[in-house]
């Protein structure tokens, strides 16, 4: 097991290299020039050339990439072109804010998803199942952005129960566990939780319905086991498949949502990426994407390890 985990951790190195290379290439393939965001119209050709050289954009692309990589290996992700602040000073606070949002969304999404899935799976084919399935499909299909706006209109503008945007009166610096802060979390977290809730509900329903059709279930019933005990068996058998789906959803949520964070002005990685994309802030884009990619890899690894732990049938060499 330990060897397996170590090997998986080693795999992250080529994955990180691949991600950074693809990200670097994509950014440079996309039309636009980072200089157009930082130099006003009408700057002289000499100024443009001087600035291009100052940021190293006059170098051939492979050289730019290798230089960046060299610095990253030393732990230096460079400075934002737009703000001059170190990239890690931008990414880490944003990541912390996204984690807060993702954790709340996970809580909502997983709880709702599991509840809906179990009810649906147990009542497969019945009207309740159909109704719950319809709700789940709506959850998966509904555009985040639109739902966020509608929730904001209802709860912030009309009913005036919750604030519309931001992380609180004092911003993320004063965010805590009190209602003053948490009320800012509800709308974005709820918006963000709808898709995972829908996906998890569908997946839990399918798995539970499948497990309940298997022969051993008949044996358990024949043995006269109470429903409660049988439920434990159902959950045990369904868990590995559901965990895999949850892991992916968790990783998705941690990646932040560009649209939801922008709608709610939530200062997380999605908001950061959105701004960096529009301003062609290459160091911030590369740094953020690399950090997020590493998160994905680590979460997948964690899920694999947990899956193995809960399901002895899965053997890891």
């Amino acid at each position, binding site marked *: 097991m330990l060897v397996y985990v170590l090997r998986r951790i080693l795999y992250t190195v080529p994955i990180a290299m691949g991600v950074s290379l693809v990200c670097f290439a994509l950014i440079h393939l996309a039309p636009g020039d980072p200089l157009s965001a930082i130099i006003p119209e009408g700057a002289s050709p000499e100024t443009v050339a001087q600035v291009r050289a100052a940021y190293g954009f006059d170098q051939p692309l492979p050289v730019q990439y290798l230089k960046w990589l060299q610095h990253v290996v030393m732990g230096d992700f460079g400075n934002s072109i737009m703000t001059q602040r170190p990239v890690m000073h931008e990414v880490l*606070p944003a990541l912390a804010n996204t984690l807060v949002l993702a954790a709340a969304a996970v809580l909502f999404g997983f709880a709702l998803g599991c509840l809906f899935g179990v009810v649906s799976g147990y009542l497969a084919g019945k009207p309740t199942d159909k109704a719950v399935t319809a709700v789940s499909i709506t959850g998966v299909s509904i555009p985040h952005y639109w739902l966020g706006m509608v929730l904001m209109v209802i709860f912030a503008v009309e009913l005036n129960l919750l604030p519309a945007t931001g992380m609180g009166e004092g911003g993320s610096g004063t965010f805590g566990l009190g209602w003053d802060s948490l009320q800012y979390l509800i709308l974005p977290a709820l918006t963000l939780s709808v898709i995972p809730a829908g996906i998890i509900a569908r997946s839990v329903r399918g798995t539970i319905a499948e497990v309940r059709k298997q022969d051993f279930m008949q044996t358990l019933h024949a043995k006269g086991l109470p429903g409660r005990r049988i439920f434990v068996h159902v959950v045990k058998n369904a868990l590995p498949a559901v965990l895999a789906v949850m892991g992916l959803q968790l990783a998705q949520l941690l990646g932040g949502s560009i649209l939801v964070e*922008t709608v709610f002005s939530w200062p997380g990685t999605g908001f950061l990426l959105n701004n960096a994309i529009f301003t062609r802030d290459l160091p911030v884009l590369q740094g953020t994407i690399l950090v997020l990619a590493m998160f994905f890899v680590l979460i997948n690894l964690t899920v694999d390890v947990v899956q193995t732990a809960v399901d002895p049938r899965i053997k890891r060499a």
Partner: protein
Amino acid sequence: MNRRSFMQLLSGASVAAVSLMDTELGQMVGLGAGPAQAQGKPGVLRVAMTAADIPLTTGQPSQGAEGIRFMGITLYDGLTRWDLSKSDQAAQVIPDLAESWTVNPQDQKVWTFKLRKGVKFHDGSEFNADAVVWNFDKLMKQDSPQFDQAQSNQAASYDANIGSWKKIDDYTVEIATKRIDAVLPYNLAGLFMSSPKRWEELGKDWSKFAEKPSGTGPWILESFKPRERAEMVRNAEHWDKTRVPKSERLILLPMPDANTRVAALLSGQVDWIEAPPPDAVPRLKSQKMQIVTNLYPHIWPFQLSYLDDSPFKDVRVRKAANLAIDRDGIVKMLGGLAAPAKGMVDEKHPWFGKPTFEIKYDPEGAKKLLKEAGYGPDKPVKAKFIISPSGSGQMQPLPMNEFIKENFKDVGIDLEFEVLDWEALRARRRLGAWAPENKGRHGINNSWAYWDPDIGLIGTAASFAKVPGGFNWGDFNDAKTDELSTKAKAAFDPAEQNKILAELHSHIVDQAMWIWVVHDLNPRAMRPNVKGFVQAQSWFQDLTPVSVT
């Protein structure tokens, strides 16, 4: 379903949701605007900006005009400034940290500026000629210890023609331009003075200075958190007592999504929002929000290519295109938040002049001109324009362009679009129509400003002002334009300069140099308890007279 119709459907759904809230649900639950979640406090002005981040705080702000509006003229002063106290005329440049200036009659490149005495930075240090020289070094002298690349980038369009600067005495500086340039006082309004003492105290580190900046402006930055908020407090010691802020505190919140800004205003989270979307205005008005609009030096045009492959080389085609557009229809589509254009500058502007070509909606006239130019129903004009789905000052570019495409089709111009995101479009504008990337593109839809003679008229029209370095994207090349531009650059009397610029403007309108469509009316919305704001005809606005009761 393509992406656009999908987005329209979504926005339609959102509007429908808002309308539903207006009527059924609101009545059903018996709630109008209930007790707001986060009501403001008297004396605290909370502003939602369109920017996604706090502009640079060190002196020369990032984020274009919005950066200068909220992080430039708030914390800092320049040698000159825009007079933003009047709403009924175009904003003029007036003395600020420089009380007066003269031009050397023997060498008109050399200017002498007399500085204001008794002005102090927020840290208590004195503003004087040394500070001016230090700040110019900060922007333009790359080997000076205080040279700051980030600020230098932002200042590039204002200091491009400044050649040298020196101290004459403690309150006098001499500035020499590279070429004779009567536009210098306009440019100086965009160069801001940071405190040398604060920079020294903070270990000569601009990133530390950014957290605790010191200027001479009417506001003092108390704190800021990237992408979240900036808080400023009133500078009660500001040298100009008429500009000591009426509000105690100013909070700036980045909110790039327009619908979010509307929701934040309606729910009481902010007192003031920039650029509400036109379709939200009726709703805002119904909730007693103030909608403030005014003309300002903004134009929504198509800048045209004059290369050999461009149909717009022929003035008849250019005029026809200008006559083909139903501007009143566009204004109606925009909920009245625009004014039809009659040229680059608005009709009331001192530079408008007396053009003989009247820009109006005349499809028959357009067809006639196209026929004269050799086009007709069997042989339409074929043109391709670069447009963007959004961007600073771009208004509602997709529906507006679709509208114009239909207008053009009616008169026999087949228009095709290349849609690029805002920064990509700007990058293509920097390259000029002749760049290989722009081959086959005959126009670019880049909203434009005319706040000073360079950006508005001379830089866009003169053949010596091609991009990069100038703003002439399409290679417009006209002897009379060049002659008038050179004359305006050497006209040091503002009245005389305005006269020449009016002549220049009349000429480029008669040449139908660009296709001019509408002027934005610069809408902003504020809660009913925001008082005292005067919306100047400018991209910049003064927040000092604003109070929140």
